[in-house]
Structures are given as structure tokens and as C-alpha cells.
């Protein structure tokens, strides 16, 4: 795809882009990966602690403790977003804070806060899922595809 794009550029543009590329500050990929690993790991550790807490102190099992754990994490993420801390964690953590459920919560909540000024229906309601909407759509769709494949394999493949 990038080759296709390159073809359309004039020689002057290509020359400048190569020139610019040498001077552009690159994303520190390895460092970012390490930070993401740590941040994501810490969030998951907290999640694990919450889950264990629910199993130990309340009447939850391994299977059922997931729901209250996710709800608690999203609640914490909401507070952090509202107090303006989550975006700073994210600048440090990158994917580490975006991939866990807290990142999903942050995407929904930050959009809701942002568009509060346009009213509840058109603002909050209409824009809340503008970032998270594609996660929901493609998440559900991929689940559907995988489930279909699994069903086919089990029914006809005899797995």
C-alpha cells in the first residue's frame, strides 16, 4: 500500500520525504514496548488483585468474578479520566494503557466528557462511542467470524 502511495508522489516530494525522514524524531519503539509491557502488566495485576478480592471476600467463583472486576476497573478508569490523569498515564504507557478494559473505558468516558457542552442527546449520546464504536463493531464482528469457524470445525471437522 505504501508503494502504491509512493508512486503518486512527484520526484521532488519523494526527495523531500526522504530528506525529512532522516531528521524526524523516531518513536522509541523498544522503549515504548517496555513501558507498555510494564503499564499493561500493572493494570492487569491490579485487575487480578480485584478479582481475587471478589472471590475471597464475596460469593464469586473464577467464572463469575470477571464481571464485577471489569466493572470496578472501568469505574477506576472513569475516575482517572475525569481527574485528568489517564491521558498522562497513556502518554507514558501507550498500548499498555489502551489495550486493557480501562483504555476502552477511557475512550468512552473522555468522549462523553468532551461533548457534554453539546447537550445530553446530541452531545454525550451521539459522540460517546465515536472512538469506542469501531472497537465494539469490529470486536463483535471478529467474535462472530471466529465463532463461525469454530462451529464449522466442530460440526464437520470432528474436533
Amino acid at each position, binding site marked *: 500500500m505504501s508503494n502504491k502511495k509512493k508512486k503518486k508522489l512527484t520526484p521532488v516530494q519523494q526527495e523531500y520525504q526522504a530528506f525529512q525522514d532522516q531528521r524526524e524524531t523516531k518513536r522509541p519503539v523498544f522503549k515504548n514496548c517496555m513501558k507498555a509491557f510494564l503499564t499493561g502488566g500493572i493494570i492487569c495485576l491490579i485487575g487480578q488483585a480485584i478479582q481475587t478480592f471478589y472471590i475471597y471476600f464475596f460469593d464469586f467463583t473464577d467464572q463469575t468474578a470477571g464481571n464485577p472486576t471489569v466493572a470496578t476497573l472501568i469505574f477506576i478508569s472513569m475516575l482517572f479520566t475525569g481527574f485528568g490523569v489517564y*491521558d498522562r*498515564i497513556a502518554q507514558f504507557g501507550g498500548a499498555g494503557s489502551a489495550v486493557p478494559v480501562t483504555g476502552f473505558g477511557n475512550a468512552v468516558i473522555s468522549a462523553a466528557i468532551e461533548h457534554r*457542552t453539546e447537550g445530553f442527546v446530541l452531545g454525550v449520546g451521539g459522540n460517546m462511542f465515536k472512538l469506542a464504536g469501531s472497537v465494539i463493531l469490529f470486536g463483535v464482528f471478529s467474535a462472530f467470524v471466529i465463532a463461525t469457524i469454530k462451529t464449522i470445525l466442530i460440526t464437520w471437522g470432528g474436533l
Partner: protein
Amino acid sequence: MLTGHRTWIFDKKPVIISTGTVVGPFEGKGNLARDFDLIHGEIWLNQDSFEKAHQVMLEEACQKAMEKANLQKDQIQFFLGGDLINQITPTSFATRTLGSPYLGLFGACSTSMEGLALSAFLVNYNGAKYILTGASSHNAAVEKQFRYPTEYGGQKPPTAQWTVTGTGVALVSPMGKGPQVTSATIGRIVDMGLTDPFNMGGAMAPAAVDTIEAHLKERNVDPSYYDLIVTGDLGHIGREVSLDLFKKHGTPIKEENYQDCGLLIYREGQPVLAGASGAGCSASVVYGHILNRMKKGELNRVLVVATGALLSPLSFQQKESIPCIAHAVSIENGGEEQV
């Protein structure tokens, strides 16, 4: 008077008789806090939306500029300005309060110098006695417009820039005391096919280089004629790229006489990645800091080159490249009576 293809020489030398600059708290913590007229402690400015805060900032800056020149609202003949929000509403709404005839401009972050060039042109040809011109941007309102919600946790790359919360307006008049606008070069669109909205500096650098070289050629002056050539918001990457481009083209611009508003405004250590950006960046830094230095006599001839990336959130999602522009205006002290 048109010189060359796109440079105006203003023989009557319109004067910037006063300026007004208003900034937000983050800019107040930066390097140039002392040069701003008004620093707000919080970005809401007691309004219920960022867009309204944006508008109020511009109103206050106009008020400051008029106060300093001892003028009333009805003496202002035109207002030329713009911002980065859809349909430039903050500027239009602020001008509703001002009540003067109004020409709305959009040149993204180059609006400040687009406005100053046009104002000087109008004043030079007796089009007006007092013109207010300015540009503004508000970090949260602009982020909402162009990027993600302010509180959204997305990691920005090291090439990203921080939008300034700030406004700068200047009052231009045919006579009076102050630095004079001597010439202006209007930029043309330069599009090098870059598509990354998180690397504006790299996209805008060729536009700045194009305009500066055209200006020097058409005015027939050496870069050393200017004490300072200051670009709008190229940031670290844009500045470095443009310096290398000058070197490649053989334009003798010295590194120490070539600065960038986007690198001046914030202090080392403020988390702004590659520097500042936004329409208010060049406006507040030039009308605050640079003109103050000129009035003190530290600088006598300055070329301001405001750079703008003319993209929209829609255009970049549709995979369009980023067209860029730069307008240059030379501001000079007018000889002995200034000092």
C-alpha cells in the same frame, strides 16, 4: 507596491501602535510569561465551554490593545482575524461583541501574519485608520476539533506539537509610535505529500523555506539584513529540516538568528514534545515577546514567518496530504525616533 511576484513593500510604513496578548495557564508557566498582558489561571476562563473561553480570550486581547492605544470600540474600522475552529466561530463571535466591520480569515496557524499583511496593505493605501488584526487558538477546543477528546489516553509521537492557548492582536495604524510593518510576502501552497498530522513541523518546513527565500530574493536583501527571522510553529523537527534546506539551497541563514515561536514559548521540561503550535502561537509570541524586544531596542529588523498546515480532520482521514503555507511580514524599528 508589488515587488517581484508576491511581495508588498509598504512605503507609508504602517505602525503597530499597540498589541494585546492573552494566554492560558500552561503558557503562563512558560518562558515568556512576562511578555503577556493577561495570563489566565485556568483554561475554562469561567465559561461553560472551551469554545466560549476561546472567544473570551480574543475579546480580552482586543480590549487590551484598544486600552493601550486609548481607543474606543467604535474607532476600530476593521477587524481581520481567524482561528482554527470550524467556520472560525470564536473569532466571528468575538467580533460580534466588538461591533466593527469584520473580515474573517483562515490560514490555519499562518492566520496571524496573513492578517497583519492584509492590515498593513489596507492601511498603507488609506483603507483605514485603525485596524485590529489577530489570531487565537485554545488548546482544548482545537484538540477537540482536530484530534481526540482532551482526556483520551492516546500516546502522541515525539513529533507531535502542543496547541497554544493564547491570543495575540495588533492595532495597525498609518501613524503613531511603534514598530513599523515594512513589507510582506504572501506564501503559496507547498505540499510535499506528507500525511502525518502528528508531524506538522516536517510538513510545514518547505513552505517556510519557500516563502523566506522568495522574500529575500524579491526584496533583494541578505538574510543578515534581519536581526531575527522567526517562524511560527515549526517546532524542533521543522526548524532543523528548514535549516538543512537553507544549507542545501545555499541561503546563508545563521542558526542563531533563526528562531521559532513554537520553541520560544515553553520552558524546557514542559511536556510539549516537538514544540508549540496553533494560530495563537505565532500571534501571542510575536505581538507579546518579539515586539517587546523590538521596543526595548534589542531587535531592530525582524522577519516573521507564520506557517500553517491547511488540513482538516476530514481531509486527513480521507488520506489526503497536508498542504502548507507560510506568510512573511517584516517588522522594523523606524530609525532614531523609536529609541
